[in-house]
């Protein structure tokens, strides 16, 4: 059976509901307890072209849409993601290969389901029929984008004013105490 058919058969693309439950925990393939696969080809450095970085930005930005968290909290801009991606691809251990795997996967899914469907699939593929290179892509791309999404400002959605990883601001400046007292 062709991998694409498998995916099509088992894909459960769900409509994006309003605020609330998006991921069915049973369907999620994000299983952090599993052993992490090695980063593919960490010695292969390179630079992604701006168009590819924009595609990765679209993938990263989908997080907010998917979880219904307004983008107004986020400082994870295209500019920041570009710096993030460049540092990850140009310096060893390099993410050049895994980002290209993510881009190919996105392309494959886009051909099948359109750009929006592809994004949704990336966040909810079926664990029994993972798409190509999914293991590395989920650990090194999706998981890391989720972390960056929260630390770069979206933690504020939950009512906090600071979070590990957020460059809150000088903590001796009374006008800018980065925590609640």
């Amino acid at each position, binding site marked *: 059976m062709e991998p694409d058919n498998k995916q099509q058969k088992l894909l459960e693309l769900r409509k994006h509901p309003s605020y609330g439950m998006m991921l069915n925990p049973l369907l999620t393939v994000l299983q*952090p307890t599993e052993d992490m696969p090695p980063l593919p080809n960490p010695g292969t450095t390179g630079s992604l072209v701006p168009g590819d970085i924009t595609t990765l930005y679209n993938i990263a930005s989908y997080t907010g849409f998917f979880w219904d968290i307004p983008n107004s909290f986020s400082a994870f801009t295209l500019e920041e993601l570009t710096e993030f991606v460049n540092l990850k691809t140009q310096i060893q251990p390099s993410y050049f290969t895994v980002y290209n795997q993510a881009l190919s996967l996105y392309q494959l899914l886009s051909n099948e389901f359109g750009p929006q469907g592809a994004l949704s699939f990336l966040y909810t593929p079926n664990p029994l029929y993972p798409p190509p290179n999914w293991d590395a892509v989920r650990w090194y791309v999706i998981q890391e984008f989720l*972390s960056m999404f929260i630390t770069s400002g979206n933690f504020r*959605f*939950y009512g906090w004013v600071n*979070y590990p990883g957020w460059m809150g601001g000088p*903590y001796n400046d009374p006008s800018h105490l980065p925590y609640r*007292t």
Partner: protein
Amino acid sequence: MNKNSTATQEANVIIVGSGIAGSLVANMLLAAGASNVVMLEAGADIPMEDHRSWYDAISTAHNQLPYDSTYDLQGDFTSSGVEPWNIQGGRIIGRGGSTIHWGGWTPRFMPEDFCLKTNTGLGIDWPFAYADLEPYYCLAEQYLGVAGITQEGQRDWRSQAYPMAGPVLPLTAQPIISALQQSGYIFGNMPVARNTVTYNDKPQCITTGTCYYCPIGARFTGNQPLDKLASNPNFTLMLNSPVTSLVMGAKNTVTGVQYLDTTTGQTQIMSGVAVFLCSGAFEIPKLMQLSTSAFWPDGIGNDNDLVGRYLVANPYIYCSGGASTNPELLQQELNFPNLCSRQWDTPEEQATGKFLMNMSYEAPLVNPAALMYEGNSAAQIAATVTGPFLYELQGGISPTPSYNNRVTSASGTTRYALPRTAFNTPDEIVSQDTINRHINNMIQLYENIGFTVGKSGAYPQRGDHASSTCRMATTDSDGVVDDTLKVFGTDNLYVASNAALPTIGAANLTLTLVATIMRAMDKILNSRPSWV
């Protein structure tokens, strides 16, 4: 040159180890005019304030850090005895040493910590009192850049204000403050070597809450003094150069060291007029034990079989407690130490074990990214944020030294060409009764505020505060070095390390280490040695 061949190089002063102790010694020697100071470091460089490393630290699934790979591996040591030590994840072998990833907590010892023997009959007294060290404590706080808040009537009295004011306690501290107040207990800020203002050419903290890797260098780390020394023509730092033995020209004279260049596999001799051992409380006694010669058949300074003995570190205990709802969204928004209590860090507790309690800065903490990753919706996560939460109170206990507890070498070497380490700790350094007593103190605090009590116990001994293995004493029958840190029976070999601390209190020890080295260096330099 062939592998394993020996070449000789010349230094004036040799420093073994590039941690905070080594760089402080270098700093003081160079400031006094010493020339040709050579530092040998077993490990490699570690990128600091590096943007890629920072991104890895905050984005990767296991918060990958550039020094993770330097930690001891299970096979690097053996442990036997009561509560066998497990040092994995503790010390760092690399440029800057273990303060690359320390917490930066910098409380002073209490006055009674300098006279354990007089007060309790246990251990040994320091050769000097708190009052003698107090001026150096002030200098050490300036050197490290300590931010703190002076408490009314604090027993670790101070002649000068902290270099920087400490931060305001966050909302998360409020429940525990209220618990402490209900019992009438004292509390305050944990002094930390973290800039609340620009200080020592380093910027103000921007509260990233990732003190294990500060992206801007606002917390003191061991690389910083080395960065400043880098351009000094009288200073040379040689990385990947573990010292494997000390060379003695006479019983009282060290003439140099033998080291291995691990990048080429060549053994080298570095001759020197004075040698400072700054390679930590495990490696220093091992190096001295292994450096046998006709002058010192049992190892240098070891005629009385004291080198490597009295191994101690602070036992670290914890107790968690929490409530079923969190309407105020209590979350460690600072993620670095703040609230502490020295209620039990007193002479009354000294005989059995003093306790410096702090509130963990890692709990309560909800990680929405992890919950998203596990497939939870925003609504589910929001419910988690206001749902049940757990605090953790924790702290270090002052240990009781024992002659039988010892560090030596095991056969074989590590990937850094250092001898494997053997820990043998047949005697307990704190009793279960003492642990229970302090856990009960924490339980009482939770009960004061109606929290449900969770898990409690002692963390495995990682040796973060390992010390006293070449302890300072007034005579060689009691210790290995004198109060100038010079090895008894030698004229030019010094131990600048936690290894030399005669005993430790409940407080973190590095500020005291820095003050002790400053005091000793003052005395050494005042004696105008030929090598400065």
